[in-house]
């Protein structure tokens, strides 16, 4: 089986995000870029499928720091790594890159395309259904378990409230991974050093092909704090206040 797994580098939104001067983007100069969490799980699922039944895994990365993450992918077991050229300092829109991923899937005769279920920059739609529809391949997102039996996949999807639905579909297919069957593995420094010699292929992007899209007019920070009361940052004072609040509402204990 040929598996193509997509790795998107996105700003670390756990930190503080500042708006750029143009008001339409975020200031990326001092931001840390990291592998989209869900894509990390997609990579792990690809490697697990390879270990379970044999597969060639091609990792394609896009965005700031793609080379670094591709070396990590090679260290974890990817057989081929490719950097998809992207515009610098721009958000990675799944709508924009879907045609490139679909073209790569065709060129590499992929049986399975894996990516994370979503990324925090996907304001114009998610990657897996775009790629699935462009290729006219079956697609399922929100997966947390994938089992391959030849060309037949059994895929479990989270539906909320603990409900899980299992589907069967044939390859070629596109899957958006929520959680890998096992947590993403740790790679040792020695493996990373060894993988740093892996040649990184280059791919040029395809035109998105969409004639019309929505447009971001402006970005803004949400009004912070809502209408809630700020209790401050001193743990002792906060604890005193919370005990009073809980007691007043009859919630301090059973």
């Amino acid at each position, binding site marked *: 089986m040929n598996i193509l797994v997509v790795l998107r580098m996105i700003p670390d939104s756990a930190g503080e995000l500042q708006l750029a001067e143009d008001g339409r983007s975020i200031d990326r100069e001092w931001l840390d870029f990291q592998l989209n969490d869900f894509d990390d799980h997609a990579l792990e699922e690809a490697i697990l499928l390879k270990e379970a039944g044999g597969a060639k895994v091609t990792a394609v990365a896009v965005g700031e720091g793609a080379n670094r993450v591709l070396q990590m992918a090679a260290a974890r077991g990817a057989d081929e790594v490719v950097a998809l050229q992207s515009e610098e300092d721009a958000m990675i829109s799944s709508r924009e890159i879907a045609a490139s991923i679909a073209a790569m899937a065709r060129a590499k005769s992929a049986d399975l395309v894996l990516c994370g279920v979503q990324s925090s920059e996907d304001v114009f739609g998610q990657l897996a*259904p775009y790629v699935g529809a462009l290729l006219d391949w079956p697609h399922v*997102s929100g997966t947390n378990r994938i089992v391959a039996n030849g060309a037949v996949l059994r895929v479990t999807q989270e539906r909320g409230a*603990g409900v899980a639905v299992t589907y069967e579909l044939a390859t070629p297919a596109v899957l958006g991974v929520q959680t890998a069957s096992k947590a993403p593995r740790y790679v040792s420094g020695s493996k990373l050093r060894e993988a740093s010699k892996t040649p990184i292929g280059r791919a040029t992007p395809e035109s998105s092909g969409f004639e019309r899209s929505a447009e971001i007019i402006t970005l803004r920070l949400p009004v912070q704090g809502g209408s809630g009361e700020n209790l401050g940052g001193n743990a002792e004072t906060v*604890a005193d206040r919370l005990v009073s609040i809980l007691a007043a*509402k009859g*919630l301090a204990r059973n």
Partner: protein
Amino acid sequence: MKLIACTEGHSSKIEAFSLEMIAAARSLAQAGDEVVAFFAGRDTEGASASFGAADRLIVARATKSDVIPAETYALLLRDVITAESPGLVLVPYSANGLDVAADIAARTGWPLVSYVNEIKRHGESLTIVAQMYGGKILAECEVQLPAILMINPGAFAEAPPGAITAVSVQTIDADPALTSGKVKMVAIDVPDYADVDLTTAERIVCVGRGIGDEASIDLARNLATMLGAEIAGSRPVVDNGWLPKLRQVGKSGQKVKPKLYLALGVSGAPEHLEGMSQADLIIAVNTDPKAPIFNVAHYGATCDLFDLVANLSDRLRAGSGR
């Protein structure tokens, strides 16, 4: 112009956000417009009994499967779009909607905006406020119609439920599409809620990524015990295997409405807020003063959560005489 509101339901339950989609469409409809609700599933009677706020209802009736795979739902919806030529299609941000919205957008070529919180219509264009970066940034977008929007549950109040007149209901047979579909449902697993049912818990202590590691959850668990609360976790905590899935709060976990929700080290991604923002009393502790959880919290603190848990536990222990 026609506005299609996509609705959902399975296991004899109509999803509440279906009424929100109808309300969203209604709020954008102008004189002469028509709000058309679309439902695919087995419980067509439930849909007919609930979606009276729409002008019309198109139901794709399935007799053989309780869950419609998103791909089949999208295929049925595409046929409806072809027949109705709507100006706007509203899709809920759900497990199903996530796949449906971009599939339809790719095949029609229409623009799509996801994570939508607010919409304003200006004739044949819309301005939209959507969430990015886990709710830390709001994007004001402009889009020309026809377009597809994927709307956050909770962004619109529910339309009043009520029956729709039989003459306004058009029924399509979904079975052929299910039979020929490339994605087949083979099993549905509904968990046993006997051990823990967060949806009925009156008090919840929820730990997020900020808890750091599995061992530290015991500190929060002890605090929960003192408060008579259930322990719960956000997605990263459950993904790491530190708490079982049934204790996850959020979009893909449980939607809870307790009297007390104490969030420790939870950042408050939109998916999490969707599951808990209706709690009566929300207390959030996070060292990042810009964490989105503070947008829904009634009380917020920026102290170290471990210091707080220790101090709070001491006081509660002293208060209980133990």
